[in-house]
């Protein structure tokens, strides 16, 4: 009983791992892009945001 529950849980973790990693990767990309992108235009648009979030910016 315990063994089969554990097995099921492991299976569910495995099938969820890929989409959750993908979600995490997407989040990292979004935050990295808005927080760190070096374009002057992006920098100026997000200036007050970056200062307010204490991103190392300029």
């Amino acid at each position, binding site marked *: 009983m315990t063994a089969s529950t554990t097995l099921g849980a492991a299976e*569910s*973790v495995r*099938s*969820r*791992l890929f*989409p*959750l*990693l*993908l*979600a*995490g990767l*997407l*989040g*990292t*990309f*979004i*935050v990295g892009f*808005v*927080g*760190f992108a070096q374009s*002057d*235009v992006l*920098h*100026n*648009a*997000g*200036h*007050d*945001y*970056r*200062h*307010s*979030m*204490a*991103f*190392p*910016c*300029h």
Partner: protein
Amino acid sequence: MSVLRNAVFLAAIAGLFAGIAMTGLQTFFTVPLILEAETYEAGANAAHGHAHEHGHEDAAASGHHHNEDAWAPADGAERTIYTALANVVTGVGFGLLLVAVSELAGGISSWRQGLVWGFAGFAVFTLAPGLGLPPELPGMPAADLLARQTWWIATVCATAGGLALIAFGRQPLLAVLGVALIIAPHFVGAPQPATHDTAVPAELHHSFVVAVTLTNLVFWVLLGAAVGILRTRFAEGLGAARSSFA
């Protein structure tokens, strides 16, 4: 792909909410201090008696080196709208990270658990990097940008890993390792500027550090609580039963 879809929906709604709330907080507590610092920044350049074309060298000396001709939003509503946009977009981004990590650990099943997860996010993204690299106002000197970004990212990763080891490590030794991992980046030390001389008054900077830290705290607990409340609607699609913290 329904797990991904549900994670994105959950993060989008929670991030939209927390991002809008954060914009309100920034408008009252951090942006006025940024605008005030910019008057000192402009004043310092003028006091040195440099014409505009020489301003660039001044700016380089103070760590500010941007193309003055690049597009920038007009002060006022336009500037606020772009700040709001950045807040909402990154709110969704931080939400995705929070949902992804918390789902791997069993999921946030209540607003109260969400607060704890929010505190963790605050510790990882604001508190730990802010110890070595305090929030900066415009016109303040700073070390090399790439070095600071590298230290910032390394500190975020080390703190997240350390907290995960403390919360989910099965052996006591892993918790000890977690604490060491959180301390390590500060032992190495953040890149510091050659000089801390600035026209920006120390009191203004202190107020800014407090304002940034507290507004980020509120942002993270709102984001965590929102995920906790909304998750009940998405739990089935996320493929997880209600489960305990660990």
